């Protein structure tokens, strides 16, 4: 029983940051910009958050959980700013969107690793490539968490999970109920329609890509504060790509994507717990870590043909096109 509880608890802790990254991906792609850069966005965002956290930890008396919230804010800002490069390349410089995404990811790894080492050397005199952050405190909802199985959902929750869910609800509302969202989704189908109707397609897309970067950044810092307990190059574990896969199964819609992420999280944690339950050596955990990726491939086999990606995604939109 405890294995199942642990599976649910740690599954959610993995799924929810993944979900917000996927929402980031949706924002970009629904606006018509193919986004393989989620991996780079989340890493760069997490880096910004981590730097701020280290500074605050050194210079202020803020409590560690207060620092986490500030770090999340700066991860959002950092991710959004880094995303400007992708937006510029795709919208202004007519670069191939797939290539741009790959470039952003490579540059992200290089820049954050370099800067981390440089900052560590400057601050602490040791050329380490990681910032130690520790793990966010967790809480359980009294009462409900005692219920078998369902209680696991309310046990050992990271506060950021709640924040992410609130942000996700807001992201959904923004996408489907407001005029920004209406134009954003129209941009992904027919940007000419938006421009002709008096909206600014390029600006909408720009904002969408920046939101994408910000949301991914939040996902990144949450992984840094949970799974990794540090910021280091190991943040580039491919979860950004996993988020993209989740987005594809979710058919570019926020609510189905949520369930796909939960499924990924449970599958991954389930593998771990199975490994523990079977009493296997820790080496075997590598085999279980493969599970989400294999599942992704298998699921893609069944879902890829039925998918309807945004029609204009990936195309260079030339306003002057006649």
């Amino acid at each position, binding site marked *: 029983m405890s294995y199942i509880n642990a599976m649910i608890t740690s599954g959610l802790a993995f799924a929810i940051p993944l979900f917000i990254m996927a929402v980031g991906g949706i924002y970009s792609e629904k606006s018509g910009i193919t986004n393989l850069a989620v991996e780079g966005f989340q890493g760069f965002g997490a880096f910004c958050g981590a730097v701020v956290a280290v500074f605050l930890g050194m210079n202020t008396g803020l409590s560690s959980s207060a620092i986490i919230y500030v770090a999340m804010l700066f991860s959002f800002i950092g991710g959004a700013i880094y995303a400007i490069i992708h937006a510029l390349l795709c919208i202004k410089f007519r670069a191939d969107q797939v290539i741009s995404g790959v470039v952003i990811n490579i540059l992200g790894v290089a820049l954050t690793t370099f800067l981390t080492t440089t900052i560590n050397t400057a601050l602490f005199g040791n050329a380490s490539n990681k910032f130690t952050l520790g793990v966010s405190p967790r809480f359980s909802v009294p009462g409900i968490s005692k219920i078998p199985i369902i209680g696991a959902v309310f046990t050992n929750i990271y506060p950021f999970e709640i924040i992410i869910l609130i942000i996700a609800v807001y992201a959904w*509302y923004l996408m489907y*109920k407001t005029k920004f969202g209406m134009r954003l989704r*129209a941009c992904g189908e*027919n940007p000419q329609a938006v421009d002709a109707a*008096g*909206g600014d397609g390029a600006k909408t897309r720009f904002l969408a890509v920046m939101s994408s970067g910000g949301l991914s950044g939040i996902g990144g810092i949450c992984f840094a504060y949970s799974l990794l307990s540090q910021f280091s190059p190991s943040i580039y574990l491919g979860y950004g790509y996993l988020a993209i896969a989740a987005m594809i199964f979710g058919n570019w819609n926020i609510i189905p994507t949520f369930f796909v992420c939960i499924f990924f999280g449970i599958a991954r944690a389930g593998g771990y717990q199975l490994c523990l339950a079977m009493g296997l050596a820790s080496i075997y955990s590598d085999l279980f870590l493969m599970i989400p990726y294999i599942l992704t491939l298998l699921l893609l086999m069944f879902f890829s043909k039925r998918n309807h990606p945004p*029609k204009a995604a990936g195309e260079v939109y030339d306003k002057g096109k*006649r």
Partner: protein
Amino acid sequence: MNSEYIVEMRNITKSFPGIIANDDVTIQVRKGEVYALLGENGAGKSTLMSMLYGMYEPDRGEIYIRGEKVVFKSPSEAAEKNIGMVHQHFKLVDNYTIGENIVLGIEPMKKKFGIFPYVDMKEANEKIAKLSKDYGLEVNPTDLISDVNVSIKQRVEILKMLYREAEILIFDEPTAILTPQEIEYLLKIMEELKKGGKTIILITHKIEEIRKIADRCAILRRGRLIDILDVKSTSTQEMANLMVGRKVELTTDKQPPKFGKTVLEVEHLSVYDESKVEVVKDVSFKVRAGEVFAIAGVSGNGQVELADAITGLMKAGKGKIILNGKDITNEKIRQRTEDGIAYIPEDRQKYGVLLDFNLRDNLGLRKYYKPPFSQNGILKFSEFESYAVRLIDEYDIRCGQGGLTSLRSMSGGNQQKAIVGREIEEHSPLIIFVQPTRGLDLGAIENIHKEIIAERDKGTAVLLISLELDEVMNLADTIGVIYSGKMLKVADASTLDSQAVGRYMMGVTEA
């Protein structure tokens, strides 16, 4: 300032990389009139109006609205001055409802619980319903755009303008995709709008429409203003000559047909699209040697899928396709080409050519894999070159650097000539033309029409699929009308007039 004119565009010049689209053009439009802009493709009509609509800014020249000088930086600024435009290619979002498309850009907002702003579609749909009743533009605001036909899409575009309280309405080639009956309906609506005090600017290359509706007409040729005419006092032939700049023949001369044996037989053919929808339904017909068999129909009624199924780009769901007595229903594309099908596709840049390749390679696209163009898998470019030189000469393909010209740098008309030349050179017993003159100017159209008739006179079976009713009436020996995937009518061309064909195109079977 003479405020007699609601719109004045003075000395407008606009150039795009490599072309001068408008050169010192001045037009003046009175309030409440229907003002036509007549010119061939590429004459600069759409560009001129795009500037009035704020899509581009002129390089030189000034625009006055109601006597007041304006500089539009975007369509929304033009919309503020009550200018609206129906574009030739509709600017609609397929997976949005009609209502959502109409309000996009000026969404009516309300606040839930006084804090959360949201787009209020309910109120918008009511307003749209009222507008559509006032002007006789029937639409259902909650229908998805992807589910309605072109005529309704056009109504949506008109409603978009009216919803924005536009007074100056620009129509860019509004009739190009409509059946004669739908055109009648549209012209009636324009009358309504005119009566309601709206000013209409109509971009077109069809003189008859101008005769029916316009008060005055400006003629553009190669970016320059040629003349401004009073429509009532000018003859059709005169307008045509002014538009093209030389005498034009409005119809193609042709000898009576000499039919040979049956080349293509399509039997009970059904085709299904990706989502398993039957887009071609149980179609049967025959094309004989020396015959132009033309398929008329409104866009999206299955004609492209029919051509694709015959050439192998799409799978045939049911039925048989027989070429010269051989069943080719399940053959590969290349085998069909070898068996004798040449194909000029509808979308030339999407299917017909490789834009990144040079002209020489594009001309060799049907032959490169076999001797003498290649031997043992190795290409022989000298063969490509001499073949290209011959075709460039014979089909008058204008290109800067001969066979090495990049296709991308060539004009649409010359790309089309290259495709037509390449396909004719296959000397296939069957040649399929789909929309062969789309987007070409009159000179090029005349040229292609002559090629089609020449092929027919040589004894080739020609299958022509066109959305342009004039083209069908002009060239066909036999006409088939396709509606909603079904072949509604097949008859000798001499027994049908364009009104009758138009009725079938709308699915009306009884006369």
